[in-house]
Structure formats: C-alpha cells, structure tokens
C-alpha cells in the first residue's frame, strides 16, 4: 500500500420519501457539492469519481453514470461505476479508497444514490426468473424465514426486533437528514401490522430518495482539514447463493469480512476497541444477528445486548447513531451512508448524534440475500 487514505469531506442530501424538488442529477449533485464544501474543495480539485447505486432498473436508466457525468463535472476525468447489490454503497467507498491507497489518484470523489420515488423497488426486487420458483415478494419475504430461524436458534426475546425499531427511530430524531423522524413507544411498534412474520411494518426500513458523497484523499491533501477520518481497514467478501451447509443466519462471508477488517485495523476485541458502529440493519432483527456475525456478541447472545439497551447512544456500544437504514433507505446509498456516518463520528462532526470522544468506528454494508459484505474501520488517528 503506497498511501494512507483519509476522508476529508462528507455530504448528504436530506432524505425523504420523494425529493420531488430534485431530479436524479440534482440529487447526486446536491450531495457531491456538500462533500466538496466540507473538504474545502471545488470540482476542479477532484481527480476521479467512483459512483455506486443498486440496480439501475429501479430508476429505468441503464448505467446512469454515463448520464450523471455531466452533473458531476466528470468530463475529462475517470468515472467508475460499482454495483454489488445492497452492499454497493460500502463496496463503492472501498474501491475509491483503494484508488487513493494504491497511489492511482490523490483526490477521489465517491458517492452513491437512489431515487426510489421514481421506481417501485419492491416489485423490481420480485422478478419472475425463468425456471425458478418465484418465492418472495420484496426483500422482507426473503429475510423473514432467516429471522425466524435466528429466533429459534437463540431463543431470543420476542420483543428484540421492536426494541431495535424504538431505538433506531429515537436516534433518527436526532439526525436532521434522516427520512423518518418518528418517536415510537414499544407498544406502538408492537401494535403495527405484521408484514412478513415476524417482521412488522414498524420494523422495516422506509423507501427513500437520497444521495451521499465523500472526498477521499492521500496524506498530502489530508492536511486541508483539521479532523480527517483515516481509513484503517477495508474489506469485501462474497459467498454463493447456493451451497451445501450455507448458514444465512450467521453468514461465513460476514464473519470473514469482519475478521479481515479488524486484523487490518489491529482490533482484537471489537467491543473494547471500537467506539461505535453504523451497521446495515434494514429489518430490525438484523441488529442482534449482526452483533453476533460481526463479533460484538457471542453466538446466540446478540439479542441480550439489544434488550439491555447496550446499543443505544450514550450506552456502551452505540449502533446506528444516525438512525440507520431503519430511518433512511435510499438503497444504493444506504451502505455508503453507514461508511460516511462512521467517518463523521471519528471526525467529531455528527452533531446531535455524536458519540462523545469516538475515535474508532465501524461502517458496514451487506446485500443480496446476505451474500455480499463490505466494511471499513475509520479512526481519528492515522
């Protein structure tokens, strides 16, 4: 690795159900401009752009980076498009950080977006594939059986998922950019209609319009700001959809991805060595599942951490301080939002949802039917 990589600019749109005031180019440009401003840079300073989004099919534009080149000032520059399913926001940031670390570019703008209001993601995710039984309606239909399996294996308290929903929505109220600002009691969450047992409506992520951007630079340019977030480790792991013995509740790819990124960052005990984490939790129950998968809890005990309130802001291991995917879900951008919020924490710029003195944070994303994982560790120290 030739260079260190630092995040010196972060920008995101206000996320909402429908940003009717912005076109798709307007959406990505809004996030990019905010990131440039944060980095004290202009378009001219950028060497290269790495953009990610989930299936192009959501918006009906094939390979939209070709079209978005104009809005992103990319003429004469390299623009690169990553697509790794729901983990794409994370993988995109990883690719961008690699360009800096490898010494290929010094100043990279990376961004991710989704404008779900111009699409119907649930049905775009429910295609009829020739010769395959059509088993699911939306992502919840795929994940509900895995959650049931988790509950059976761990004998988890049935309220665990609802507790995550209450907590993440409470966090979301502190984040002015979040799509949902919902203060909900446990009783209100539990009273919501059941969509895919055991996932209630109140335990699902919303469909959002939004974009997020980051400016990643090498040592030379990190001095532009007083509080860069240093990238201490990055990792991606993929497993197959079908193989004998595949454990989708606690996937091997997720465990390996976490181990890889911890090894790079010198983390031996994530509970002690990491101050906070932004983890891809699109359905509430994935918090306890990922607490175990990422090594924050022993297998079968993640739900106890949630039930004891340990993942709340101000508690011992805050998860999803921004409100997470449960409050904001522009699918293609959701992974990068996790990476960006982790960087905001160690830069000390997370405002009302700042974890006091956060120095080391984990950003995490996953996608597909839990085949694709991406993670990074960022730190206030190089």
């Amino acid at each position: 690795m030739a260079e260190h990589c630092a995040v010196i600019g972060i920008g995101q749109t206000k996320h909402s159900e429908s940003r009717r005031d912005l076109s798709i180019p307007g959406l990505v440009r809004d996030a990019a401009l905010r990131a440039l401003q944060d980095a004290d840079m202009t378009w001219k300073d950028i060497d290269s752009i790495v953009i990610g989004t989930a299936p192009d099919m959501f918006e009906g534009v094939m390979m939209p980076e070709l079209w978005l080149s104009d809005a992103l000032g990319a003429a004469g520059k390299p623009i690169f498009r990553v697509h790794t399913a729901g983990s794409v926001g994370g993988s995109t940031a990883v690719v961008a950080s690699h360009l800096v670390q490898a010494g290929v570019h010094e100043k990279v703008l990376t961004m991710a977006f989704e404008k779900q209001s111009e699409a119907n993601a649930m049905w775009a995710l429910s295609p009829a594939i020739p010769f395959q039984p059509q088993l699911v309606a939306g992502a919840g239909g795929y994940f509900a059986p895995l959650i049931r399996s988790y509950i059976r294996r761990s004998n988890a308290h049935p309220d665990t998922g609802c507790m995550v929903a209450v907590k993440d929505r409470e966090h979301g109220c502190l984040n002015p950019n979040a799509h949902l600002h919902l203060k909900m009691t446990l009783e209100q969450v539990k009273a919501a209609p059941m969509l895919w047992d055991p996932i209630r409506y109140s335990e699902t992520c919303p469909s959002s319009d939004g974009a997020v951007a980051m400016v990643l630079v090498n040592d030379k340019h990190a001095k532009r700001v007083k509080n860069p977030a240093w990238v201490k480790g990055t990792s991606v792991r993929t497993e197959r959809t079908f193989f004998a013995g595949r454990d989708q509740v606690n996937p091997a790819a997720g465990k390996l991805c976490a181990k890889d990124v911890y090894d790079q960052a010198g983390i031996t005990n994530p509970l002690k060595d990491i101050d906070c984490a932004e983890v891809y939790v699109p359905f509430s129950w994935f918090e306890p599942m990922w607490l175990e998968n990422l090594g924050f809890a022993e297998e079968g005990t993640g739900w106890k951490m949630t039930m004891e309130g340990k993942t709340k802001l101000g508690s011992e291991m805050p998860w999803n301080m921004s409100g997470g995917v449960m409050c904001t879900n522009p699918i293609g951008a959701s992974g990068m939002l996790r990476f960006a919020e982790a960087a905001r924490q160690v830069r000390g710029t997370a405002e009302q949802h700042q974890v006091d003195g956060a120095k080391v944070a984990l950003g995490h994303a996953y996608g597909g039917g839990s085949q694709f994982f991406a993670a990074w560790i960022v730190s206030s120290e190089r």
Partner: protein
Amino acid sequence: MRDVAIVSFAQLPSVKTIVAADEPELVQPVTSEAMKQIGLTQDDIGFTCSGSTDYLPGRPFSFVAAVDGLKAVPPIRESHVEMDGAFALFEAWVRLLHGDIDTALVFSFGKCSLGPVPAVLNLQNDPYYVQPLGLDAISAAALQAQAMIDASMASERDFAEIAARNRRNAIDNPNAHIKGDFSIDAMLDEPYLSSPIRKSFCSPLSDSAAAIVLAAGDAARKLVKRPAWIRGIDHRTEPHALGQRDLTTSPSAKLAAEKAGVGKGKVDIAELHAPFAHQEIILRQAMGLDDDVKVNPSGGALAANSLMTAGLIRFGEAANRILSGDADRAVAHTTSGACLQQNLVAVLEGE
C-alpha cells in the same frame, strides 16, 4: 507501482444465441478455463471482479447468480462493476497494486440475444428529455458518422473498407461471430438502417463470456514465460449530452491514451473496441496510431460483439499476442456509452 500482467485469457465463441445458458453456465466454463491454462484454481485467486449489466437479462441483480459459477466457498474477495468487463480488469489492477495479494480473476458475460439491444441502449440516455425521443444506439452512431462525412473526414466507402478488413481479419479467429471476405460494393448497396449507417457498418449482437487472470510481479513470471505487462492503463469520460461534444473526435480516448503512455513507443497491434466502423477512424486518430499499427487482428467488435464482454475480449486478444510472442507492444481499448462517451486504454508489453 507494482508490475501487473495478464497471464491468461479464455472466451466462449461469440455467437448469435447461446441457447438456455444462465449466468453460472456462462461464467463457469470461461473462468475455469482461464485458471486451468496456468494451473490455478479459485483457491489460488486473491481477488475476483466481474462486469455485466442487468439490462440484458432484464432483471435486477443478474450478477448475483454469476457468483454461483465460481467456487466461492469459502467466501471470496469479490466485486462487480455495472460496466464492461475491461473496467472490472481496471478495478482488479488497482487491487493488485496494494501488494497483499498476487492474483486476480476478471470475468464478464453478456447475452444480446435476450432483448432488442439498440432499443435497450436508448435507456442509457437522459430519461427526462432524451429517452422519450427514442434515440437508439444506431441512430446516435449515425449522427456521429454523418458528422464525420460533413467534416470530410471519411466517406461511406471508408466505413465499408473498415468493416471488410475487420471481418477478413476474423477469418483466423475461431471465436468470431461474423467473418469472411465481404464485398465493399455489396455493402454499399445495403439499405440504410439510419443514414449513413448500413447494417454491415454495425457490430453484430452476440452472446459470449470471457475471463482473464491477472498476476503481479514474480507471481506472473512463475505462471507464464512471457506475461503481458500492463505498462499503463487509464480511463476518461466526456459530457453525456451529444450536443455538448464534437462527435468527430474523442478527447477522452486521446487523454486516456496519453495517460496510459501509448505514444511512448512503437505499437505493434491494437485491439480497439469500435462497435461501429466509423468509430475506428476516430479512435485511431485520438490515440495517435499510425498506419503501421495492425488494428484488430482478431476482427474487433465488428466481428464479435457481446455487450459488456467485447471490451474485455479486446484486452484478452491483445494480451494473447504478447503472451505468444507475436507482438512486443499492444494497445487494448474499451468504450462505453453513445458515440464513444467513455474510453479505457491500456498498453501491454512483453519483457
């Protein structure tokens, strides 16, 4: 920077229709063949990266199934680009520069037989203002070809000669889709698809898949006698709106060629990804390739054009000529978008 080379290449013959092959059935034969050529298995690969688009099969996440054509157990370091496989090769090259792993597997797949490709490519346009006009890939290319004629850069006969030469070159290429000795006058008698473009000036629409293995430094030297070293690689884009560009030139190909160092030495052969005959003229000029350079010895995209794979095949065909010792210095090129909007250029050399 670490030296990285192409050490093997495999492709499925480009044909009109590969019947009833799903993603794993396209990917498994080429990836295993590329690894087998140099005695590797997936367990020896440090990083895997692929390129494809959901708009060919017409469903989201089609690349997810492709992973099942690999031995991704235990889980692998893997990434995917919604771009031609040549861009996946670029990502893999960046990954190998880190120094912690020595090998990467790159693959791509595309079945044009699954839909009306020129109309599908209309969906690359601005959805608010341009898509509704119905500008398809051939009409866009026709605007460019007409601009060249208007600028007295070339004639329709030049386009026909380029198409004939590429398909003549393809006679020796067992993987080419359209090959043979075609009469230029017969081509010029074809009706216009979109003036001044006739059918023979267009690339065919093919089904194919391809895979390349990259290796770094001594690992490459151990695997093959004569690795095809990537001496320079760069990609650039241009404004998307056709009205903002001089369509008779390609500043992005020119800049990418400069950054890749094309002009630093004599080029023996070039594999240019020109889906329409007239684009070869623009690309040659932009990259400064003179008449001594043998362009598209494989027949190029005019002889075989599997969308998302045709670019990676250019890299493989160029590399094969270095690996075999037939050439010392080769240029490989890939384009994306209407009228050559985005271009990736690499220089490959033997030792």
